[in-house]
């Protein structure tokens, strides 16, 4: 009795023997028939344990179904791999229903693996659904973005420009990319930006990029004004953003600037403390710094500041005074590069601000273009009244752009378009016999090392500390000398 109820509770679905047990569930059963069935059930359980499937079912089916066709048997034995549903001997439904209760085969198609054409179609559906989601819940009526990037040919140009390019390629809005090149448009830059597939405008600007950072900042501002002049002449419509080629922009930046009305400002993270901050820190501990230096206010961010009622009240800039002595003066110096008080990168303008008369209703606080000359330190010079700036990114709380200046020395060389044209000179011969004992030559700061620096692109350039013994007589194991090639 207890066993029967235990059986009921363990496995919900029936066992063939439960047909009998249910009807007598309540009565006390001690008849020999029941004991016989119990023993038989126990025996079948043991056999099932050994065989791995429910043997008792099989026996029951074979006993009860008189006209057992081979198909039924094969269905029971190989139910995992059949291609057609089997007929079940327990069919008790009305003939009107096409659906039969009972055991069916598991249908598996001949090649149960993904079909690449189907995968492509599915991805297209996913893309379209996401587009629809963006249009429903994202920005309505997105405006064209006009990105202004000043650049010039130098070692780090490829690295920086590829970064900006890839960011722009991921922007889901219409885009015009104005690349202003110092010294006139070159094929180097043109070949780089051609790979983007974006709508680009490549213009040149007279003059070569200065070597000192001070002069360079000013030169870049003039390049940007030159681009704005082009926006004005061509009456390009949209939102102008200033993407310096070494900066990093998050994709939320491009979504956020869509909310600009006339002139908006985002918070810019200043990554100026590259490699020099620890020096300043240690000097602070020694108490060298002036009293004004307060570590708490050194949040490396430039951007709009709001009061508690989310109104724009002023600017937050980085106090760079403690760092001025240690800052880099020339491009490629060690030490960090300091930004100016407010960088162009944090501003977004409605292009109509620079349009000539006859454009859309320009607000009264917008100055006319003509009186500038080329000296515009920030876009704020376009305004008579700087309080109309719209703070973006939760009122400046979200940093969406990072300002960074990383450059090699002004005279550093690199293979044009990073394609190695002429065959390289051999510095280390590839032979099976042990490598020569002498370590690779240190790259010296003179330009004669340029060929070795380009050929060293084949093997990794390792900075060997000064105290390494360069005595060629010292034997080196094969493994350690090969480690420089890894």
């Amino acid at each position, binding site marked *: 009795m207890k066993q029967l109820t235990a059986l009921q509770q363990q496995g919900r679905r029936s066992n063939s023997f439960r047909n009998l047990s249910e*009807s007598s569930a309540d009565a006390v059963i001690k008849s020999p028939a029941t004991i016989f069935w119990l023993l038989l059930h126990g025996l079948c359980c043991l056999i099932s344990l050994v065989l791995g*499937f429910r043997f008792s079912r099989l026996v029951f089916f074979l006993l009860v179904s008189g006209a057992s066709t081979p198909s039924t048997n094969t269905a029971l034995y190989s139910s995992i791999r059949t291609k057609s549903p089997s007929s079940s001997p327990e069919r008790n439904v009305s003939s009107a*229903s096409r659906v039969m*209760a009972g055991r069916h085969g598991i249908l598996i*198609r001949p090649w149960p*693996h993904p079909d690449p054409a189907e995968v492509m179609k599915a991805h297209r559906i*996913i893309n379209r*659904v996401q587009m629809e989601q963006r249009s429903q*819940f994202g920005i309505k009526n997105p405006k064209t973005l006009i990105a202004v990037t000043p650049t010039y040919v130098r070692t780090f140009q490829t690295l920086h420009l590829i970064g900006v390019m890839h960011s722009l390629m991921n922007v889901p809005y219409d885009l015009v990319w104005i690349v202003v090149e110092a010294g006139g448009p070159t094929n180097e830059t043109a070949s780089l930006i051609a790979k983007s597939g974006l709508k680009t405008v490549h213009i040149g600007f007279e003059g070569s990029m200065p070597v000192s950072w001070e002069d360079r900042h000013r030169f870049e501002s003039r390049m940007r004004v030159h681009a704005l002049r082009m926006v004005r002449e061509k009456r390009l419509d949209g939102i102008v953003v200033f993407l310096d080629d070494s900066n990093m922009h998050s994709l939320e930046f491009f979504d956020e600037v869509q909310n600009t009305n006339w002139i908006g400002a985002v918070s810019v993270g200043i990554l100026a403390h590259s490699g020099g901050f620890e020096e300043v820190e240690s000097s602070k501990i020694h108490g060298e710094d002036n009293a004004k230096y307060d570590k708490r206010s050194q949040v490396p961010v430039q951007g709009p500041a709001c009061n508690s009622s989310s109104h724009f009240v002023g600017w937050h800039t980085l106090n760079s005074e403690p760092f001025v002595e240690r800052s880099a003066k020339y491009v490629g110096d060690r030490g960090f590069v300091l930004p100016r008080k407010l960088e162009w990168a944090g501003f977004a303008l409605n292009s109509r601000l620079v349009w000539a008369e006859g454009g859309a209703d320009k607000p009264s606080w917008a100055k006319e273009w003509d009186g500038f000359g080329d000296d515009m330190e920030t876009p704020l010079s376009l305004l008579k009244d700087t309080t109309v700036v719209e703070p973006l990114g939760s009122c400046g709380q979200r940093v969406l752009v990072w300002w960074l200046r990383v450059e090699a020395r002004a005279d550093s060389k690199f293979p044009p378009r990073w394609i190695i044209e002429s065959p390289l000179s051999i510095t280390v011969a590839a032979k099976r016999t042990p490598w020569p004992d002498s370590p690779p030559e240190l790259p010296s700061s003179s330009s004669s090392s340029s060929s070795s620096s380009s050929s060293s692109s084949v093997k990794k350039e390792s900075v060997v500390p000064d105290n390494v013994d360069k005595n060629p007589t010292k034997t080196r194991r094969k493994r350690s000398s090969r480690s420089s090639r890894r």
Partner: protein
Amino acid sequence: NMGGEMWVVLIIAALFLNCRFSDGISRNSAWTERISGSAGDVLEDNPVGKLRVYVYELPSKYNKKILQKDGRCLTHMFASEIFMHQFLLSSPVRTLNPEEADWFYTPVYTTCDLAPNGLPLPFKSPRMMRSAIQLISTRWPYWNRTEGGDHFFLVPHDFGACFHYQEEKAIQRGILPLLQRATLVQTFGQRNHVCLNQGSITIPPYAPPEKMESHLIPPDTPRSIFVYFRGLFYDENNDPEGGYYARGARASIWENFKNNPLFDISTDRPSTYYEDMQRSIFCLCPLGWAPWSPRLVEAVVFGCIPVIIADEIVLPFADAISWEQIGVFVAEKDVPYLDAILTSVPVEVVLRKQRLLANPSMKQSMLFPQPARPGDAFHQILNGLARKLPHDPKIFLRNDEHVLNWTAGPTSDLKPW
């Protein structure tokens, strides 16, 4: 002159009514859609004033005492029987005067006898139901008037009033003979099946609304999963060889698509189950031991297009909701080609289905919220009952007429409860 004016007024009125009731798809806002016309508008009908329901006062051993024994009855997928009772007790459609009632409700919780693992045991349910009916037939005259023709019962178990979890057994038993004339409100629905009477109302299984609503994610989260499913493919305990459970359909899904990156299917249920459904485009709703499952409710609430794999299934409120336009139906024999079927759905159709699912009245109609909200499943049940009015005069029997056989059914059912 008077006649002329009358004609003008009549014509204007006719045009107005014509526009009101014309078929067509109306777009409320850009991103939800209603199916207007005979099917869609019905979801927003208000049943108050259209029917009157009398609730029998049964001794608490039929309802409250059972609930007290096991509180899990309020959270499992059969909880609709309990919540419907609570809703009716305080609803404006309730009447305390049985003479004016159109429908009679008997609150008996037949699906609340739970095993230790939480699944309801149906073995005592027939006797319980019989006992309840005996009680109402002796204490009140209204049962004998129609032999249950104007009574309705909630039987949300696997196979409804067949009172068994196993399909063959349920078919053998058939619907409880005493309930043959009553209206059954049940979750089970399959065409040409013994356990679905003509005139039954199919309802969705209970899914906890607060729990689902607490897991909503922002609607601009991109839907990046193509097909999603979490659940068993093989029922190891009861059908280890496979082929019996889900008529082999779930096992077929696993064997064909376990290697397919478009199909995010697995047996383990993560804590982000609801969030994942909101990031999916299609959600599979295959049959299990019974054709229906709470996955359909979850898919509708989370805006994921339900892919219904259950032959001949009758979906909830099928006369009010046009499921063909909302979900995708796949025959069980076509499961091996599910990926081809789903990728061949045109993109505009996918977008349209998503818009229909985004309709809030669609989501409300699948839920049993506490307290009740307009347009929810309780109201849809009442709407369904109201649509069956007025009663066919033939259900009213003369004094000497007896149609039901009180001794029909297995002998174990006849024992008192």
